[in-house]
């Protein structure tokens, strides 16, 4: 009997290990990234980055491409960024060669899971900084802030039942749909996050990964307070 139980324990251990691996699996990166990210740290119920607006060029804007500096926050308790809300500045918007701020989300439990919205009340100016913040407000509601003004409010609170709070996932940096696009050096500083108790924490959780898909570059500044990216 005992010898039979040991393999069972082994099987269970392997199963638990596999589940653990699955939960900590890397996100399915679809585009090119120069980012810092983590999806196995503490639950993140909000995040903030002071974004430097760098010069950018988008090679594939006419076909819908873009290059953007973005702050992502996992939502709905998902691992691996299946569900998220994001905000940032982009060059290239829905086939137009323009620069704009925007926010977007991909969530579960609604008829139209994917949405992207242009922000028009504030305008990105190259060479300046813009504080960008994502916050969980409670009652299944997230908000995106640009320069500390609410640009988006209740995000499907009527429909997003169980769209509670955040996830163990946060990321910041460049995203591009073409290796021929470019971005001058940009930084994301004052990387703060909101923990599960609803308190702001002084800097992002210790990072487990940097990602840089050539020609993008990504690095950390001193003590992980600032994250630097470029692509050219």
């Amino acid at each position, binding site marked *: 009997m005992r010898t039979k139980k040991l393999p069972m324990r082994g099987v269970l251990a392997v199963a638990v290990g596999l589940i653990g691996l699955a939960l900590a699996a890397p996100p399915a990166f679809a585009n090119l990234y120069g980012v810092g990210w983590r999806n196995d740290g503490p639950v993140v119920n909000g995040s903030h980055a002071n974004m430097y607006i760098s010069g950018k060029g988008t090679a594939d804007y006419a076909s819908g491409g873009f290059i953007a500096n973005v702050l992502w926050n996992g939502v709905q308790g998902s691992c691996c960024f299946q569900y998220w809300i994001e905000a940032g500045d982009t060059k290239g918007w829905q086939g137009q060669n323009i620069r704009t701020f925007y926010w977007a989300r991909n969530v579960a439990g609604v008829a139209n899971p994917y949405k992207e919205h*242009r922000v028009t009340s504030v305008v990105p100016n190259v060479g300046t900084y813009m504080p960008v913040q994502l916050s969980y407000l409670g009652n299944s509601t997230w908000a995106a802030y640009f320069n500390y003004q609410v640009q988006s409010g209740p995000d499907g609170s009527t429909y997003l039942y169980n769209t509670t709070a955040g996830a163990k996932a946060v990321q910041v940096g460049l995203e591009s749909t073409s290796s021929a696009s470019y971005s001058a050096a940009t930084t994301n500083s004052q990387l703060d996050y909101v923990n599960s108790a609803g308190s702001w924490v002084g800097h992002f959780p210790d990072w487990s990964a940097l990602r840089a898909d050539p020609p993008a570059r990504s690095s950390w500044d001193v003590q992980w307070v600032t994250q630097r990216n470029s692509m050219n």
Partner: protein
Amino acid sequence: MSLQKKHIASVAAGLLVAFGLVAALTRATSAHGQGSARAAGSPSLPPFVPAVAQRMAAIAGNARPDSAEYVYTTRQAAVGLDGEVVDSNQPVYLVVLHGHFVYRYARGIGPPPTGTVLTLTIDAATGDSLDLGLGNGPSGAARLGPVRPLALGR
């Protein structure tokens, strides 16, 4: 005779006045009707609406959607159908496209979103595309006013 001529002339003048009044009333009624229709519906459709819709359909992986329709509304009313709030509320055309879409140029991490209902808002004054949604609907556009078919280039 002169009295008869005067009488005929008076009757003719009366008839002319009567015809004139009827014609004027007819014009006024017609103009009022057009004005009411214009106030309740959309202005004539700018050519940029089908152009932007066609562009976004192609970007979302289906240049020949099964059908297309639009509603003239405001931006907040359009995005409010999904319970969202945005930072401006100008007049827009809410365009709803039906077909099978794979949005390869979507934002964010993960596989491209897919769906059968692609919604767009287009600024009614500038023609800028502002908002995009993708899923399996329904869009709820009919709650905002008369939904009209949109002809796209083939």
